[in-house]
């Protein structure tokens, strides 16, 4: 068990070890959704919400069910089921209580089940042996870090939409270069806080 304040982990997860720019998680939806700012904001918010919720549920399930019954090797299946179930429940819940929010977030929720950032947070929390509060801080930071990265990329992509790009680089190529430059900027934060 490492002794770091959850808030430090929260900050570190946003900046020094951004889940997307230094751990490369959640790239698929990152590359495909980041064409528009509004859609990116919607997906990013949904990711923050679901990451925190599923990390909390997964933490409890792992330490209260899997460890006592010695079925830790089933963790992948259990985590996936928990994530899928939580996303489904969230969808029903939001649809029932806030239709407005449902229309802005709703279409992104099914996409999130297969977002590796969410699953990655669950795996990192086990590997790094976080406590419950640290897990919450890490999950919130990771979600917000992801939101920050996708918003920044969407903003840049909208600016360069009309610009000339070499034919072979169009689409994924130029997006990866932009992401690389962003990652380079985030490398500047590294070393200031160490969380693993």
């Amino acid at each position, binding site marked *: 068990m490492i002794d770091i304040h959850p808030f430090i982990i929260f900050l570190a997860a946003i900046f020094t070890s951004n889940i997307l720019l230094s*751990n490369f998680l959640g*790239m*698929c939806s990152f590359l495909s959704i980041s064409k528009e700012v509004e859609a990116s904001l919607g997906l990013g918010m949904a990711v923050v919400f679901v990451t925190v919720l599923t990390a909390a549920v997964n933490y409890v399930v792992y330490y209260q069910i899997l460890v006592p019954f010695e079925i830790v090797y089933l963790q992948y299946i259990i985590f*996936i089921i928990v994530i899928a179930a939580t996303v489904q429940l969230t969808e029903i819940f939001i649809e029932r209580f806030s239709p407005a929010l449902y229309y802005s977030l709703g279409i992104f929720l099914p996409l999130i089940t297969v977002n590796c950032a969410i699953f990655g947070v669950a*795996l990192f929390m086990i590997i790094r042996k976080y406590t419950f509060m640290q897990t919450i801080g890490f999950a919130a930071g990771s979600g917000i870090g992801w939101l920050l990265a996708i918003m920044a990329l969407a903003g840049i992509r909208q600016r360069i939409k009309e610009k000339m790009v070499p034919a072979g680089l169009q689409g994924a190529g*130029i997006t990866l270069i932009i992401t*690389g430059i962003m990652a380079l900027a985030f*490398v500047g934060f590294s070393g200031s806080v160490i969380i693993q």
Partner: protein
Amino acid sequence: MTKIDIFREAAFKENSVWRQVLGICSALAVTNFMRNSLIMGLGVMFSLALSGFTISLIRNHTPRSVRMMVQTLIIASWVIIVDLFLKAYIPDASKQLGPYVGLIITNCILMGRAEAFAAKNTPLDSMVDGIGAGFGYTFVLLIISLFREVLGFGSVFGFTFLGDWWPRWSIMAMAPSAFFMLSILFWYIHQKYYIQVKK
């Protein structure tokens, strides 16, 4: 289509990484060393081939509404086998790859091949398609990691062959270079093979 055609189509012509832009997460994360890339690639190939086979085997008995969940669970079962195998026989590699072995489950390539191929074709064809897609993926990983390891550490598969006269590019060991190397690969391949096709 013969089996060879299916393999070539899945491995090169419709390569998951450079053609469909799937599975980027792990293609970026594990390519700092060639050994990690090879192990990861083989793990993905194994899970792709066998999950393709299994999904195709029960494709006519799976209700449409729970299809995604069933596919995910089948993939997860095969990935658990890969993970346990690595933990037992190659523990140091398992430690280095860390969560990325488990993350094969959410690797878009597996879901993509399951949906696009295994859900419509016979078990053996799906298995060949899985091996092909896994081969194409391993191929991409090895190219990227070759450049990153030689430039960053002066070695190939952990064997150092460049002496001290070679300045180690520490940027190659860090995250940003993964993005740059992958985009350069994209650029080269698209410029060479796909631009004329489009016109």
